[in-house]
């Protein structure tokens, strides 16, 4: 972007400016333009007033936390009581068809009798009603286990009452009790060889609790407010408004953009509570406080649901548990993971010293984060904390966003490390957004990612080379760096959006889209191979292997916001769906599998099915189960152009990340 700006661009930038999202370079240009152009000045002032007015007007008008609870219980009430209001709906329907508003307004819509009976209920009344209902439902839920999720049966009252989270939170409570308290509930991971589908099952001990209602002594005997849910309206655990981040019932309804929450991952929107019992619990500790937002499904109920919905199994979840155990066992005392010690490729600059250690530490931290363990929450929070703090310590001060002469890794290949480590910090930050120290470090790491990007003369970005500010775009390196930027964006860090476009420049140059059909017709087109390395002038179109086209398609999806049926995405996905590219043989190229898994997951449908079926079998099957290797995956140096130079730590982390795909990110498009 140059220093002059035309009126159209200026108008487009104004909102970003007011939201504080505009890049520094554009701010100056915008302000200069506004100063010079009286029309835009008037426009700008008007917009600013609107912006402020909107913010003020809606400031204390967030939708209530218990909106969904109430809607839920109300739905049941209507089913039972309502007859009269059907009339009103009929009238409304008729008038919409007739496009006549006034008639419908006169028609009368509410039958006052039942309305007052519902709205007159105090909040705990609703809670009690739901509570009783859940007890009654518990039996039905367990009966419903046999039903496959995809077959949605007819509408009935009982099923309506089961908002997915309710079932999930039962599981969440169970798993969190287990994780945090490590009481006798601590059960070993489920049989890794099981091919059985994961289904939502209500554990008997929870059923017993639900019946007793106010006997939660096992949860925290020192905190009376966590003990009673049913008879004690002060039980913060179940009625959290504004909990502490570190205590039961954390999260709550007053968060800023992201909430830290116990047991439910982060919530990227304010107003959704969380907590062991679900922040907006209902008296049995099975509230609806499932995590929302980009990282919200990483544990607790959301995770169970996602595993089930997207085709995971007990075996995949068991394998993730085992892998995390292995990683936790092999962390160094100071918090980092060692690359060379565990079969990393000695003598390779990407693996030796800081370069390799920071990278594999990033991978390991990502594996924990992906399963919902953050610096504050979860069974492995100490491990995550130590890993993240180690990365933060190693991040240097300096003019260029901490990556001047003392850049993390000065050597060849350091952009790999930068991307992975920055991705880990950015995700950690996104999941613990109130940690200002972490945030400032993540911001600097992300700035370092942008700093390392190739620029052509001016401020026009390209992708990334092995070395900071190199010359040859490298698709593989680019994948990690762009994921870091994306995670930073989700975490609310400041990122020049042209940095994203730089990556797309390279993908557009390097991907071979000759003879590609136009968007929408590409559903069956196989093609779109991607270059491995090249410049914009000589991109070596399409000469890269399977990891490259997977990375290209993923970048398009995550950064370009392209639809999954555009040729640049559908082409590679169709290639990956072919038998020779599926994750069906071992030793497998886990590096490719990681890209491929994320990409095919986003693509969804038959593609995901074709990919997921072999993957979810082979990974648990090939996970080592002997001695010190228990829980890890073996390292293969050379396989079809793929190298796991980072050793066992990297291969194990990648394996875990593959199997965490079901809940790690949201699906970008609903397809």
């Amino acid at each position: 972007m140059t220093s002059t700006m035309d009126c159209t661009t200026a108008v487009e930038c104004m909102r970003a400016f007011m939201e504080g999202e505009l890049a520094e370079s554009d701010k100056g240009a915008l302000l200069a333009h506004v100063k010079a152009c009286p029309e835009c000045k008037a426009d700008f002032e008007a917009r600013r007033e609107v912006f402020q007015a909107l913010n003020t007007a809606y400031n204390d008008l967030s939708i209530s936390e218990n909106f969904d609870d109430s809607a839920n219980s109300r739905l049941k009430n209507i089913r039972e009581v309502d007859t009269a209001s059907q009339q009103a709906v009929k009238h409304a329907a008729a008038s919409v068809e007739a496009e006549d508003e006034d008639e419908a307004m006169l028609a009368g819509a509410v039958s006052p009798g039942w309305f007052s009976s519902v709205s007159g209920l105090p909040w705990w009344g609703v809670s009690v009603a739901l509570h009783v209902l859940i007890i009654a439902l518990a039996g039905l839920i367990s009966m419903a286990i046999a039903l496959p999720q995809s077959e949605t049966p007819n509408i009935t009252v009982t099923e309506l009452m089961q908002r997915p989270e309710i079932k999930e939170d039962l599981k969440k409570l169970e798993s969190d009790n287990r994780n945090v308290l490590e009481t006798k509930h601590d059960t070993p991971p489920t049989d890794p060889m099981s091919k059985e589908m994961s289904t939502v099952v209500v554990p008997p001990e929870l059923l017993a609790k639900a019946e007793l209602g106010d006997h939660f002594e096992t949860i925290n005997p020192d905190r009376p407010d966590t003990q009673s849910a049913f008879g004690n309206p002060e039980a913060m655990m179940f009625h959290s408004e504004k909990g502490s981040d570190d205590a039961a019932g954390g999260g709550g309804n007053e968060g800023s953009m992201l909430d830290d929450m116990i047991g439910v991952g982060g919530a990227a929107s304010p107003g959704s509570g969380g907590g062991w019992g679900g922040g907006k619990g209902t008296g049995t500790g099975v509230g609806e406080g499932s995590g929302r937002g980009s990282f919200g499904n990483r544990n607790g109920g959301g995770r169970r649901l996602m595993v089930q919905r997207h085709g995971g199994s007990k075996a995949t979840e068991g394998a993730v548990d085992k892998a995390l155990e292995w990683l936790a066992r092999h962390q160094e005392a100071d918090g980092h993971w060692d690359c060379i010690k565990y079969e990393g490729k000695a003598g390779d600059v990407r693996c030796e010293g800081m370069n390799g250690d920071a990278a594999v530490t990033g991978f390991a931290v990502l594996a924990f984060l992906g399963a919902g363990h953050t610096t504050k929450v979860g069974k492995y929070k100490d491990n995550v904390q130590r890993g993240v703090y180690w990365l933060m310590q190693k991040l240097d001060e300096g003019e260029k966003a901490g990556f001047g002469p003392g850049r993390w890794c000065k050597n060849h290949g350091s952009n790999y490390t930068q991307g992975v480590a920055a991705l880990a910090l950015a995700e950690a930050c996104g999941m613990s957004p109130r940690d200002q120290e972490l945030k400032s470090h993540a911001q600097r790491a992300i700035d370092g990612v942008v700093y390392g990007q190739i620029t052509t003369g001016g401020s026009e970005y390209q992708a990334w080379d092995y070395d900071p500010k190199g010359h040859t775009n490298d698709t593989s390196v680019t994948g990690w760096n762009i994921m870091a930027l994306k995670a930073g964006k989700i975490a609310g860090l400041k990122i020049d959006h042209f940095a994203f476009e730089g990556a797309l420049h390279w993908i557009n140059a390097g991907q071979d889209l000759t003879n590609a059909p136009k968007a929408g017709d590409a559903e069956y087109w196989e093609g779109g191979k991607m270059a491995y390395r090249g410049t914009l002038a000589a991109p070596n179109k399409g000469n890269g292997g399977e990891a490259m086209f997977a990375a290209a398609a993923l970048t398009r999806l995550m950064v370009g916001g392209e639809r999954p049926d555009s040729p640049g995405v559908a082409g590679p996905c169709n290639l990956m769906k072919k038998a020779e590219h599926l994750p069906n043989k071992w030793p497998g190229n886990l590096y490719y599998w990681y890209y491929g898994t994320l990409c095919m997951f986003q693509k969804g449908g038959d593609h995901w099915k074709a990919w997921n079926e072999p993957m979810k079998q082979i990974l648990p099957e090939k996970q080592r189960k002997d001695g010190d290797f228990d829980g890890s995956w073996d390292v293969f140096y050379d396989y079809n152009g793929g190298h796991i130079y980072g050793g066992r730590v990297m291969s194990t982390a990648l394996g875990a990340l593959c199997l965490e795909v079901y809940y790690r990110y949201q699906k970008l498009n609903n397809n």
Partner: protein
Amino acid sequence: MPTTAMMVEALVGMRKEPGGIGPDYFWQLVDRFRADLVNQALVLLDSKQDAEDIAQETLCKAFLQLHQLKDPSKLGAWLRQINKCNALNLRRRRQREKEQRLSTGQVESIQAPRTSDTAQQRVRDQILKAVDSLPEPYRDVVVLRYLEKLSTDEVAIRLGVPSGTVRGQLTRADELLARKLHLLQKKEEQPR
């Protein structure tokens, strides 16, 4: 998040195959429309509590009466229509209650209802009203952005459109709002 088009499609599917719509659909309705409905009710009612009550009621009733909607593509309009009826009814009822209280000599409750007395509240009412009168895509992005307090990217995910589209629509919505609030009188259309 399913897009509106997908929800409509699901409705059409239900027509062909009665009972083919699942309970998940209710939550889709809630996620997609609750902000819009609450905003609409807020314009007519004095309290947020009431507005939310009304929106819940609308969603519940509508869900149970989905088969009565003749043209699924008018799902949004239909919901708004029901919502408006419900809100107006409650408004009348509140008015009556107030009159009764006054006539029987009861003092106004300590928790005074939100009225348009102060300048600030007048401005707020104007804004809510202006937002409610925006054309559909703009209204949607604004209520999701401000009432649901979603970020731009989250709004995009919720609506199933690219973030860029949301940004553009918000920019346009600002302009329309500025006009409605008489903050802006200038050339009719921004070059786009």
